[in-house]
C-alpha cells in the first residue's frame, strides 16, 4: 500500500493509505469524527489537502479505497471506466484538475464528454480541495437533462418534487397537499409520496391515485411512491401503474445490502420500470436517493470518509440512468452533519460530484429538529444551489413534512428561487401551468382555474 507524505517547513505528515488521505483532506464534519477518521486539526487537514492535490488523477484507477475483490461498487467503478473519455485530464494531478475545471477549457461540452472518464473518487478528491464558490462555479457549467413526461434540468429551469406526505396516507389529505403545490407551480420533477405504510395494498392505492390525478388534469409530470425496489417490482407484476421506480442507494456493497439491495436488483428494478413504457418523452425511469453518512450508519464504510462514499453512490446511480437523483442532505442528523455550516458544505459537494459524474442532481435541502440548523441555513443552501444550477429541489407545504418529521424547502421557497434567479419550471410543465390558468405569463394567477375551483367546491 503506498504511503502518502507531505512536508512543509521541516514538518512531515504521513498518511497510511489513500482512504486515510481522503478522509483527512475532507472539510470537517461530525460523521468523519464519529468514524474516527477525520483530521485531528485544521493544520493536518491542510497538509492532507496539499498531499492530495499532488496525487495524479490516474492513481485512482490503481488504488481503490474499498478493495476491488470485496466490493461490487468498486468493480462497477473500475470495470466501467472509460479510458478514452478520461484522456483530456489523464495527465493531471488532483490540484491540476481543479485548475482545469475552473478554466475555460472545461465548458459544458467538454464536461459532458469527460463524465464517463471520471470515477467518484476523482471527483470526491477534487471537491475536497475546492472552496464553496469553486463547487458552485464548476457545477454550474454542467447541464444534465433527463426526460420522462417532461424535460428536467435544462439551463435556466428549476423543477420541484411535490412531496404531499400525510401521516396516514389519507388520499384526501394527500390530494390537499398536491393541490396546494400545483397551485404554487410545483411538481414538475415528480409528485413523490413517502408512504407512511410500506404495505403493498396501501402503496398500490397511492399509485392508482397519482396515476388518476396526473391523467385527469393532464399534467406533464410523473408519479412515484417511495417504496423499496422489490415492492415496485412486485406491484408492476400486479399491474399497478408505476411511473418511476424508487430506491435509496449507497456507495458500498455492504451499505447497499443493509438497504436490502444489490446492483443486480437495481438492474431488475430498472428493467421492470422500462417494461411499463409509461414515459412519453424519455425513458429515465428511476428516482434515487442518497445521503452522506448512510454507509457509516450501516457500519459499512470500510474506513472511508462519508463524502467519498456518497460520490461512490453516484456510480451506482449512474448505472441506473435515473430521471432524478436526490441527495437528502440534512435528514440523517447531527451525528453525521452537525450544523448548518456542515449541511451547506455537504449539499454543495454532493451536487458538484453528482453533476460532474453526469447525474441529474437535486437536493433535499433539509434539517431535523435535533440538528444545529434553522430556516436561515436552508435559505443559504437553497440560494447557493440555485446559483450552482441544481435540477430540482423538494416542495412541501410550509416546509413542514408532517409524516417524516423534518423540515425541507416549501412551495414558496421554490418560487423565491425562481424569482431571484430568473428560473422557470420545466418547459412542458410551464406550458401546462399557463394552459390551465395557474400561471398568467410568468406570474401566479389571482383567481383559481375553473377545474380546480370545482374540485375544491366539492371537497368542503
Amino acid at each position, binding site marked *: 500500500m503506498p504511503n502518502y507524505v507531505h512536508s512543509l517547513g521541516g514538518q512531515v505528515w504521513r498518511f497510511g493509505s489513500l482512504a486515510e488521505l481522503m478522509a483527512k483532506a475532507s472539510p470537517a464534519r461530525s460523521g468523519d469524527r464519529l468514524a474516527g477518521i477525520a483530521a485531528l486539526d485544521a493544520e493536518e487537514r491542510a497538509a492532507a489537502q496539499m498531499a492530495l492535490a499532488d496525487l495524479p488523477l490516474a492513481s485512482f484507477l490503481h488504488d481503490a479505497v474499498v478493495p476491488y475483490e470485496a466490493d461490487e461498487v468498486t468493480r462497477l467503478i473500475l470495470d466501467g471506466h472509460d479510458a478514452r473519455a478520461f484522456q483530456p485530464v489523464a495527465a493531471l494531478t488532483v490540484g491540476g484538475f481543479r485548475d482545469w475545471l475552473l478554466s475555460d477549457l472545461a465548458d459544458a461540452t467538454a464536461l459532458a464528454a469527460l463524465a464517463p472518464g471520471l470515477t467518484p473518487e476523482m471527483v470526491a478528491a477534487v471537491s475536497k480541495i475546492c472552496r464553496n464558490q469553486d463547487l458552485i462555479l464548476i457545477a454550474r457549467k454542467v447541464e444534465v437533462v433527463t426526460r420522462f413526461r417532461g424535460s428536467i434540468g435544462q439551463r435556466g429551469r428549476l423543477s420541484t418534487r411535490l412531496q404531499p406526505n400525510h401521516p396516514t396516507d*389519507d388520499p384526501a389529505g394527500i390530494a*390537499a397537499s398536491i393541490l396546494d403545490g400545483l397551485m404554487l407551480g410545483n411538481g414538475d420533477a415528480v409528485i413523490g409520496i413517502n408512504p407512511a*405504510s410500506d404495505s403493498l395494498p396501501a402503496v398500490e392505492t397511492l399509485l392508482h*391515485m397519482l396515476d388518476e390525478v396526473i391523467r*385527469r388534469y393532464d399534467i406533464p409530470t410523473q408519479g412515484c411512491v417511495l417504496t423499496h425496489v422489490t415492492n415496485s417490482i412486485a406491484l408492476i407484476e400486479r399491474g399497478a401503474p408505476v411511473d418511476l421506480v424508487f430506491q435509496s442507494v449507497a456507495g458500498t456493497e455492504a451499505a447497499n445490502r443493509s438497504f*436490502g439491495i444489490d446492483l443486480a436488483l437495481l438492474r431488475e428494478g430498472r428493467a421492470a420500470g422500462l417494461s411499463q413504457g409509461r414515459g412519453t418523452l424519455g425513458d429515465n425511469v428511476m428516482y434515487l436517493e442518497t445521503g452522506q453518512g448512510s454507509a457509516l450508519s450501516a457500519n459499512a464504510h470500510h474506513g472511508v470518509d462519508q463524502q467519498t462514499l456518497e460520490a461512490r453512490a453516484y456510480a451506482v446511480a449512474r448505472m441506473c440512468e435515473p430521471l432524478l437523483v436526490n441527495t437528502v442532505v440534512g435528514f440523517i442528523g447531527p*451525528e453525521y452533519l452537525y450544523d448548518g455550516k456542515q449541511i451547506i458544505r455537504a449539499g454543495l459537494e454532493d451536487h458538484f460530484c453528482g453533476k460532474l459524474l453526469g447525474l441529474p442532481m437535486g437536493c433535499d435541502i433539509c434539517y431535523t429538529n435535533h440538528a444545529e440548523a434553522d430556516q436561515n441555513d436552508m435559505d443559504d443552501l437553497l440560494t447557493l444551489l440555485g446559483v450552482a444550477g441544481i435540477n430540482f429541489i423538494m416542495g412541501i407545504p410550509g416546509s413542514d413534512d*408532517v409524516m417524516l418529521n423534518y*423540515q425541507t424547502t416549501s412551495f414558496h421557497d421554490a418560487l423565491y428561487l425562481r424569482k431571484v434567479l430568473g428560473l422557470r419550471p420545466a418547459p412542458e410543465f410551464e406550458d401546462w401551468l399557463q394552459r390551465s390558468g395557474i400561471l398568467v405569463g410568468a406570474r401566479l394567477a389571482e383567481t383559481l382555474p375553473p377545474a380546480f375551483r370545482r*374540485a375544491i367546491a366539492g371537497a368542503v
Partner: protein
Amino acid sequence: MSGQEDRGPVTQMPWTGLRALTPARIALGRAGTSLPTAPHLAFQMAHAQARKAVQLELQAEALADGLGALGLQVMQLHSAAPDRPSYLQRPDLGRRLDAASRAVLPAAGECELALVIGDGLSATAIHENALPFLRVLLPALAGWRIGPVAVVRQARVAIGDEIGAGLGAGNVVVLIGERPGLSSPDSMGLYLTHAPRPGLTDEARNCISNVRPQGLSHAEAAHKLVFLLTEARRRGLSGVALKDEAEALATPARRNFLLED
C-alpha cells in the same frame, strides 16, 4: 396604481377549507410569492418548541409503574450514552447498553417476544403512546411468551438487538420515540426484528412508523404488528423479505376531491 395593489400585499388562498383534510401547512397565503408574516412566525415558534422536546427526559419510573400495572415484569436499563449531548453525537453509544445494564440482563433467558421501550429522540412520544398502545396490543398477543420489558434511556433502535439476544428472545419489538416534527412531537416508531443479535442492520427490521392518535392509531399499529409478528414467527425471518400485506382496518374512506366527477 394597478388593481393588484388594491388587493393588499397578501393574497389569501381560496382553499383554506382543505386544511380539515391534513395537518400539513397548506393554504398559507402569499406575500408576493413568499410566506406571509403570520405563518412565518408560527413556524419559528413551532421549531423552538420541537427543539425543546428533543431535550426532554424520559419519566422511566412512571412508565415502569404503568407497565407493572399491565402485569409486565420491568427492567430499567441505560444505553452507553451518558447524556443527551453524547446521545445526539454518538449513535454507536445509543445502540449498546452500559456496563451496569449489561449486568442486569439475565444470563440465559428464553422467550418468544421481548419488548423494549426506548426514549429515542422524543420522550413525549413514549409518555403519550407506549402504555395506551400496549393496552391494545397485549390482548392480541395471547399465547405469546413475552419476556420482561426493558425500559431504556438514551436508546437507539439497534439496542433492541443486544437486549433481545440477552433475553434469548425469538423476536424483539422496540417502541421508540421518533424524531419530533414541527407538528408532531409525539410520534412513536415500532421496530420488529426476528432472531435479534448485535450487528444486525436495518434490512433485518420491519418498521411501523408514526404511531400516535393523530397518525397511525394504536389499533391500526397493533393490527399491523401482530400480522408481522405472526408471519415472522411462521417464516422465521423479518426485514426486507417480510412484506407488510396486512389489509388496512376498515376506516371510513374520505373522498379524494381531486378525482370527484
